[in-house]
């Protein structure tokens, strides 16, 4: 080995070490840049398009048996909304609760809990997958959202259903919200749940109404729902990404 060669090798090794350090700090900078996360976002569109292409629109999420039920259904995020109006409703067992349904519909309506319970129901034992990585299995009973939509009659331009929630998420009073498209809204397993494990839905899990969207992650399944709005775009709602967590950088399409 000539002197020249060994010098070259030492230089290459130093360059390798330096570039790996640069690489890591570079990644941090890329994560905080405007443009790079948008490049990464292209994968979200690709995932959504591919998953929807290969899966039939009405494909059902897996349903489980009572033996699979988690001993206790984990509560995550808000467990008791710090909202005086909500607390007043809860103090009265939600007797005065009304679910407002409006937006791009022919007949805006509101429903009491008793009215929702009076509609046909669906019961399902499903797995709840949190974006954090854990899963819990619970038994849910509720009114299919499609039945509520049939009553209010969405207009042809309707593209999304937005859920407004009672839980404030920050000091500015931003409330939780979420949105799904009409395919998910009409899916048979998409229900406005009022029972969990044969009990009245506890406050920790979203009383009086939480939505179940069984083919997506937990953050799509808004709790403490007070209103449902049918829209053609969610660009003017919140920060325009379609949900509280979406506004914090999570994907709108949460099928993965």
């Amino acid at each position, binding site marked *: 080995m000539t002197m020249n060669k060994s010098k070259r*090798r030492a230089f290459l090794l130093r360059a390798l070490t330096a570039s790996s350090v640069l690489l*890591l700090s570079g*990644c*941090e900078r890329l*994560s905080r840049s405007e443009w790079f*996360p948008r*490049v*990464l*976002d*292209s*994968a*979200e569109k*690709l*995932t959504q398009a591919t*998953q929807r292409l*290969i*899966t039939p629109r009405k*494909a*059902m*999420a*897996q*349903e*489980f048996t009572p033996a*699979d039920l*988690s*001993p*206790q*259904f*984990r509560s995550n995020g808000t467990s008791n909304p710090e909202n005086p109006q909500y607390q007043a409703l809860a103090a009265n067992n939600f007797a005065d609760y009304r679910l407002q349904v409006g937006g791009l519909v022919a007949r805006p309506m509101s429903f009491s809990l008793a009215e929702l319970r009076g509609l046909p129901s669906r019961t399902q034992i499903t*797995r709840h*997958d*949190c*974006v*954090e*990585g*854990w*899963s*819990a*299995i619970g038994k849910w009973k509720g009114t299919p959202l499609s039945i509520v939509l049939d009553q209010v009659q969405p207009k042809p331009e309707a593209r999304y259903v937005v859920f407004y929630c009672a839980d404030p998420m920050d000091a500015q009073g931003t409330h939780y919200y979420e949105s799904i498209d009409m395919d998910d809204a009409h899916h048979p397993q998409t229900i406005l749940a009022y029972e969990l494990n044969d009990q009245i839905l506890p406050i920790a899990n979203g009383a009086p109404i939480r939505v179940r969207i*069984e*083919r*997506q*992650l937990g953050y799509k399944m808004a709790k403490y729902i007070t209103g449902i709005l049918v829209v053609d775009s969610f660009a003017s709602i919140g920060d325009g990404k379609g949900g509280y*967590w979406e506004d*914090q*950088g*999570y*994907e709108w399409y*949460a*099928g*993965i």
Partner: protein
Amino acid sequence: MSPHVATVPASNFHYYRHTLPIRIMHWINVIAFFFLLMSGLQIFNAHPALNWGKSSYTGHPPILEMGAKQTAQGNIIGITTVFGHEFNTTGLFGWSKGEDGALTERGFPAWITLPGTQWLAMARRWHFFFAWVLVINGVAYLLYTLFSRHLTRDLAPTRRDWRSIGQSIKNHLRFRHPQGETAGHYNILQKLAYLSVIFGLFPLIVLMGWAMSPWLNALIPGWVDIVGGRQSARTIHFVVAWALVAFVFVHVFEVVMSGLWNNLRSMITGYYRLASKEQKHDHE
């Protein structure tokens, strides 16, 4: 022969070992795996526990769990629990320095996660982007390796390979590497390692990634139960990731031991230098 002859460069020859597509796909795979591993560990940190079964709450404790706890003396220590056995892993797992240098509760330390800060949303973006890079690259590789006959010509073990397995194990244990023409093709252990990574570990880790997608669960409801459920799939995904890391360590070790620069050159320019038999005799 005179010693002079032994140093004549003409007795060495370069042979074209890796075609351009193979070289490109190899390095794309390196980059994708690197980012997938680090962003995957950041995703793990959002729930630093592994369970077996359909859910995380089956009544059984996690297989693996990382966290911090306060000792009787008031110190905070990192604890990693594996099959019920607790290990103090302060500074590494459970309790380590964050990006700002302050000790914080987290599964894997900042220097091995992407992003370094606890930032699940960004880690998912990196992970799913490079997951597509890995899968597209992997499919391209499989098609190329079949149609170029790289698979049958270079990777598939021959009868002679199988007979040489004892010798190959001995060679590896003694860190003795084939010289001359025998270095011109992969040995049996090398072939088996590559084949199990290409057709075993990589497809398995991708499949276990899909198993965690609630939307893909609906494609054929119940398919995830083949491996024991979604949380089992998450555990397998994690274990296979580290099996791949182990492969990378062995692979890089062998690359260094059998001639770092020669190997590196062949994966960059395609050309690998072989010492001819004559030269070998001169040295003996």
